[in-house]
């Protein structure tokens, strides 16, 4: 059917795949018409998509180091953009982001700005230069640029702390979705999720992850956009929601003014199940101080430019030029989802609170709301709750509580969309969480197998042995992550944000100055990574244990303090120790020229 090599046929392959997936959605909706149960549809969606990823993972198996670590450096820009977008958009982006916007409004939207603006830093400061370097992993760059095993090892430590914090949240998300869709207890579902994740990456490494991530992006973007457009049209809010929801946004502001934000007493709030929240913040008004907004956005931007699982995606492009363009494509594909999340939040909120809409529940009697089918379903799933605090029999704005996930998961049902959409959303959430988890586990396993095992412990190891070590590590790290995820220590979103702060505390300045400041040396980089990570983590612990913090830096933005310490210590230590060798300085000069052979390839 296909002539020529796989890379040339990519548009065709993924075109057929997309068509097949749309066909599957249609088959499922026919099945629903014919009486297929909601549960069966959910299982079909998750099982079918995961099976496809596993097949792609199997077909991408490889025994070559270049293919395993950097997908053979031949991934075209647009496809690398899709893979990066899937790598980037986690279960949190997919399931929790619209909910965050719904509840916290402007203050939360700093994350949208931060998680996109960071790519400008990636494109201009780092990605092309690291691609020219020709490294396999981010610590590979640090180790070669600064020299010495200690700097390499420190980079692995920072990478592991940041990525591991992140990956437990992703495995947790796959477990949540698998447990709902397959109707099994969470403790087992976590391992079902983990095995699905490992199926994609074990055999093919980066090559397998790349091609499954492209497939996962296609599923997740369809699963996110289709309901948004459908709901918007069904509500009569406009056929292209992104450009047409101004009336809805101002209507929400009007209703907020009419209802007012009544503060509930602590006693009343005790009744509300854990994890649910009411609407207490304005939807479109500016409800945070400039510094609160800017510090959060800044932390996320610098964190984006320091997270190794994102950076390593740009090692897979054919050239430096392609790496730059590919960052643009990545952000474009991310933009498609991020710009839709606020629209979904708007539609979801209005459909619930506007008394003039048939779906609106505010102003109805409590008993009437409690009798609604979807309310009962989501109440049972512990994602919705109403209570008549003031005893007037009518539901007020402050008496309605919802879980953040419900905005994405429940809105299709509230708006009266067929169940097939809910199945699709579950498959999308699974794709988002799996693709990110894959990228993260691979980043950690590759760093340990390549930088610690091959470069430090046994530099003479043969390729076959290296790849065995890499795969064993992949499984070990995956199981460690799943075990911690099964304990359910922290929420999904909180730990994602911490990962950004850890990464920027330890890696941002050592990476950026490695390219842009020739005078930066080994001692400086080690000090920057170690002190940055320690002070950032210390600040987090201090604030978590009742410390007051300073300069308005919270537990979500502790990376600002960590990276500031990192910068100062790196510059000071670099300047008081001797300048890097002439060979290192020549290497930096060469990194700055896009053409020619990669640095590491030459050695």
């Amino acid at each position, binding site marked *: 059917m296909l002539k020529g090599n796989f890379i040339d046929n990519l548009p065709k392959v993924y075109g057929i795949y997309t068509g097949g997936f749309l066909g599957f959605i249609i088959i499922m909706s026919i099945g629903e018409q014919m009486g297929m149960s909601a549960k069966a549809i959910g299982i079909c969606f998750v099982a079918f998509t995961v099976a496809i990823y596993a097949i792609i993972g199997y077909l991408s198996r490889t025994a070559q180091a270049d293919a395993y670590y950097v997908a053979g450096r031949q991934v075209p820009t647009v496809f690398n953009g899709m893979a990066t977008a899937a790598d980037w958009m986690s279960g949190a982006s997919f399931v929790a982001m619209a909910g965050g916007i719904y509840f916290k409004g402007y203050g939360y939207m700093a994350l949208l700005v931060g998680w996109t603006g960071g790519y400008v830093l990636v494109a201009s400061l780092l990605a092309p230069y690291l691609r020219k370097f020709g490294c396999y992993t981010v610590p590979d760059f640090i180790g070669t640029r600064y020299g010495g095993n200690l700097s390499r090892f420190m980079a692995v430590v920072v990478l592991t702390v940041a990525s591991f914090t992140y990956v437990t949240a992703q495995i947790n998300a796959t477990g949540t979705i698998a447990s709902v869709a397959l109707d099994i207890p969470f403790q087992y579902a976590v391992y079902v999720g983990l095995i699905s994740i490992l199926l994609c990456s074990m055999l093919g490494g980066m090559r397998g992850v790349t091609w499954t991530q492209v497939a996962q992006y296609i599923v997740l973007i369809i699963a996110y956009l289709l309901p948004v457009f459908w709901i918007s049209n069904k509500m009569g809010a406009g056929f292209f929601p992104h450009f047409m929801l101004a009336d809805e946004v101002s209507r929400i502001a009007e209703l907020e003014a009419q209802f007012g934000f009544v503060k509930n007493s602590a006693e009343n709030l005790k009744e509300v199940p854990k994890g649910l929240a009411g609407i207490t913040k304005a939807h479109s008004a500016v409800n945070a101080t*400039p510094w609160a907004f800017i510090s959060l956005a800044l932390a996320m931007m610098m964190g984006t430019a320091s997270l190794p699982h994102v950076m390593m995606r740009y090692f897979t492009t054919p050239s430096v030029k392609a790496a730059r363009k590919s960052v643009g494509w990545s*952000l474009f594909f991310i933009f498609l989802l991020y*710009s839709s999340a606020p629209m979904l939040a708007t539609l979801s909120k209005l459909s619930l609170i506007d008394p003039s809409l048939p779906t609106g529940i505010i102003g109805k009697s409590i008993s009437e709301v409690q009798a609604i089918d979807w309310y009962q379903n989501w109440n049972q799933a512990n994602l919705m709750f109403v209570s008549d605090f003031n005893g007037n029999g009518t539901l007020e704005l402050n008496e309605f509580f919802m879980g953040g996930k419900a905005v994405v998961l429940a809105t299709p049902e509230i708006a009266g969309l067929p169940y097939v959409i809910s199945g699709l959303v579950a498959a999308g959430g699974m794709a988002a969480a799996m693709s990110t988890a894959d990228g993260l586990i691979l980043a950690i396993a590759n760093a340990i197998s390549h930088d610690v095992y091959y470069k430090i412990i046994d530099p003479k190891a043969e390729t076959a042995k290296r790849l065995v070590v890499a795969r064993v590590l992949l499984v070990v790290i995956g199981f460690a992550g799943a075990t911690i995820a099964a304990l359910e220590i922290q929420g999904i979103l909180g730990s994602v944000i911490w990962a950004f702060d850890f990464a920027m505390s330890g890696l941002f300045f050592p990476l950026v100055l490695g390219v842009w400041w020739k005078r930066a040396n080994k001692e400086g980089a080690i000090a920057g990574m170690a002190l940055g990570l320690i002070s950032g983590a210390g600040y987090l612990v201090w604030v978590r244990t009742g410390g007051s913090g300073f300069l308005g830096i919270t537990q979500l933005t502790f990376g600002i303090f960590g990276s500031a310490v990192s910068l100062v210590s790196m510059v000071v230590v670099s300047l008081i120790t001797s300048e890097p060798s002439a060979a290192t300085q020549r290497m930096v000069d060469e990194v700055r020229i896009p053409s020619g052979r990669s640095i590491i390839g030459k050695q």
Partner: protein
Amino acid sequence: MSKQEQHWEKSKGLLMMTLAIWFVFSIGIFLFGAEMNEVTGPFGYPLTYWFTCQGSLGIFVILIFWFANRQEKIDEEFGFSERGDD
């Protein structure tokens, strides 16, 4: 100044310009978030709100492609461009 130094000077200039635009739309405008939100922005959304959900995001996408094209031009000018396009 050698060819390589000139290339790096120009690349640094482009970086500064890119970061300046980035700074304005990721940090600068949000210093005046409350004031700006009084203004009606594109498609009738409040202006600051629009920037947070579409404006800044879209500008970053365009900015990266613009930067990539400019950098390619600089590379070509000094003969540092790579063969093959993808």
